[in-house]
């Protein structure tokens, strides 16, 4: 009788090898590069520099601002993505005409590459001929164009909107999967007992999706903290440093300023902070969060 428990190391060995190859090795190489002076201009001068790169980037003109932006971006977008995901999934669970079409349309942003998403949203936000300003004018809500992408505060919000739009579908899919595990009889029983919509959500839906919500919050926090493509293509990190995020700063240090040592230092700091973020979120979870799921699995 084959049982996976008989050869645990054999079963986990292959995926562990892949993780080591594609995660541990690059992170290790990044750490190694960050401890050396690795400059594009001087490819033959690869010298040990200790923590110099870390000191340089932290004291530089961009790091503190990009860290603040990344934390704010994460704090805003991750909960909004999950919240919209829950709301959309609940909507799509209902039976109405065109539900199948709407389900497909809602998933569309998920399959678009980040740069295409950015181009779409540039068209929406363009001050001269963008869709948003045009509509606002037609509705008589504005008399002059709003500079969505060149005002620092609006640019940050615009990029956040584009990022949220691209990430919501994944949350919708997973929440819908969690919703599908709920026995319809529970809803029926709740209705018979006189539970209103909020009470049904609180006592029937939430227990079934809360573990998935936490997983999505962690996932979206990491995605937001490390996002790059939408920002790069929409605003180039600007205006000024308004939309410069840490991942963007990795690129800037490495490719614009040719300093791969400094870029690697920022990259390793991002990895370390992301790791801390995972540990902090995981430790903050109630210990019985996954208990029901584990019980069912066993």
């Amino acid at each position, binding site marked *: 009788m084959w049982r996976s428990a008989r050869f645990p190391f054999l079963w986990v060995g292959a995926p562990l090898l892949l993780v080591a190859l594609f995660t541990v090795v690059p992170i290790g190489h990044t750490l190694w590069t960050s401890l050396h002076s690795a400059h594009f201009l001087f490819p033959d001068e690869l010298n040990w520099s200790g923590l110099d790169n870390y000191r340089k980037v932290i004291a530089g003109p961009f790091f503190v601002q990009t860290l603040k932006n990344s934390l704010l971006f994460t704090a805003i977008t991750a909960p909004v993505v999950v919240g919209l995901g829950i709301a959309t999934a609940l909507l799509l669970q209902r039976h109405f005409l065109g539900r199948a079409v709407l389900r497909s349309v809602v998933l569309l942003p998920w399959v678009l590459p980040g740069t295409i998403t950015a181009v779409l949203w540039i068209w929406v936000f363009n001050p001269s*001929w963008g869709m948003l300003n045009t509509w606002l004018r037609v509705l008589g809500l504005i008399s002059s164009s709003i500079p969505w992408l060149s005002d620092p505060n609006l640019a940050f919000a615009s990029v956040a909107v584009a990022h949220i739009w691209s990430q919501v579908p994944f949350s919708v899919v997973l929440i819908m999967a969690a919703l599908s595990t709920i026995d319809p009889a529970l809803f029926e029983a709740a209705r018979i007992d006189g539970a209103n919509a909020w009470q049904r959500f609180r006592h029937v839906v939430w227990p079934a999706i809360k573990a998935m919500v936490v997983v999505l919050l962690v996932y979206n926090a990491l995605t937001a903290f490390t996002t790059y493509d939408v920002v790069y293509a929409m605003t180039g990190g600007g205006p*000024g440093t308004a939309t410069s995020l840490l991942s963007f700063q990795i690129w800037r240090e490495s490719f614009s300023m040719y300093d791969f040592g400094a870029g690697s230092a920022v990259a390793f700091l991002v990895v370390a902070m992301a790791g801390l973020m995972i540990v902090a979120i995981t430790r903050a979870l109630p210990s019985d969060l996954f208990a029901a799921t584990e019980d069912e699995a066993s």
Partner: protein
Amino acid sequence: MLGMSRSLATAGATLSLLATFAWSPVPAQAQDPDVTLEFVVWNYSLDTIADNVRLFEEANPGIKVNVTDYTWPDYHDSLVLRFRGNTQTDVIYGGQDWLPAWAAAGFLAPLNEIAPEAIEAYRADLAGFTLNDMTYDGNLYGLPYYADTISFIYNQRILNDAGIEVPTTWEEVADAARKLKANGMERPIVYEFNQELPNFFDAFVAQVYGRGGDLFDENGEAIFDQPDNAAFQQLSWLRDVIADELVAFENHESTIIPAMNSGNHAFTIVYNYVLAAMNNTADQPLAGEFALARMPGEAQSTLGFTKFYAITAQAAGDDARREAAWKFVDFMAGPPYAVAKRWAVEKGLGFGQLPLLEDEEVIEAWSSWVLMPTLQAQVETAHGGTWKEWTAIWAASFRPLMAQAMIGEASVEDVMSQGATRWNELKAQMAAR
């Protein structure tokens, strides 16, 4: 009428290109090495590039050319990755701003070492600033793909209707914009605002040259942090007109074209070939309304620059690749300059090969979208930028600072001070090596 003369000119240039290569003395097929060259370009007019490559391959049966393209914003980083990753790369589009760093790092090969006699013979045909842009440490690293100036463009109908003279100083530009705004034009100036593109810095330098100033002294020291410096004044000017809501931003030159053709803007600052696209009757509703004026300011000078074909050190290290790469570069940019002429006639790209200035087809084609005497006066007063090994690195950190000052997020004083300090640090670091 304008479209017809353009089509005829295009057809003529293509025919002359075909004829040139059909009758040019081609080396015997048996002598050609069997080589596939890796040619890396940014993705401007890929159809024309592919057709030029096809003509080269037909004339050189032993050589194939594989074209890899990147978008302009991604081009620089992609090249850096290819160099760093040792990806086979033989011929590239180079730029004057990147040359010192790439040549100093040993990624490019001097053409005067690959084909010394030909290069010596070609030098006399190349414009001064073009030669300067392609030269590093006394060696010539390229032949021109295109050479251009950054120019001040205006909508002559809008100015005529408003009774406004073509401005000749930046103060007049601001006054004209204020008058147009008072007449109902929301943002009369449209500006390419993308702090990650080299264009963002180049356009600023062109404006500074218009004022007759420079960012650096003759010793290469940064002087733009001094309040009476033209760069300091120009950044202050930009901050003021942006604060007065006279400026609309676009993040790429390609969107400047429809923006100007919307009739919502009267002024912009772009490369000359963008003017050619704006005045293209085939697809632009306001074509013919746009004209080039000399860069405003006391000197009315501007920045001239050159993009060029360069051979990598990787290719030069292999005899067969070196020979094939040189043939390709010679075909694309050498006499009789048929490819450069094609770019000029069909796309309005500027050129560094002086004989084309007297070519009738070029003159006829360009006359359909620009006043040649004005352009000639602008080109004659243009001069090259200050390109050092650290310029690209420095500009990458200075551009976001400039953007901060322009939108009022930081003071011009602070930005210029930080920029000058960084420039002088990099200069000292380089000198210490």
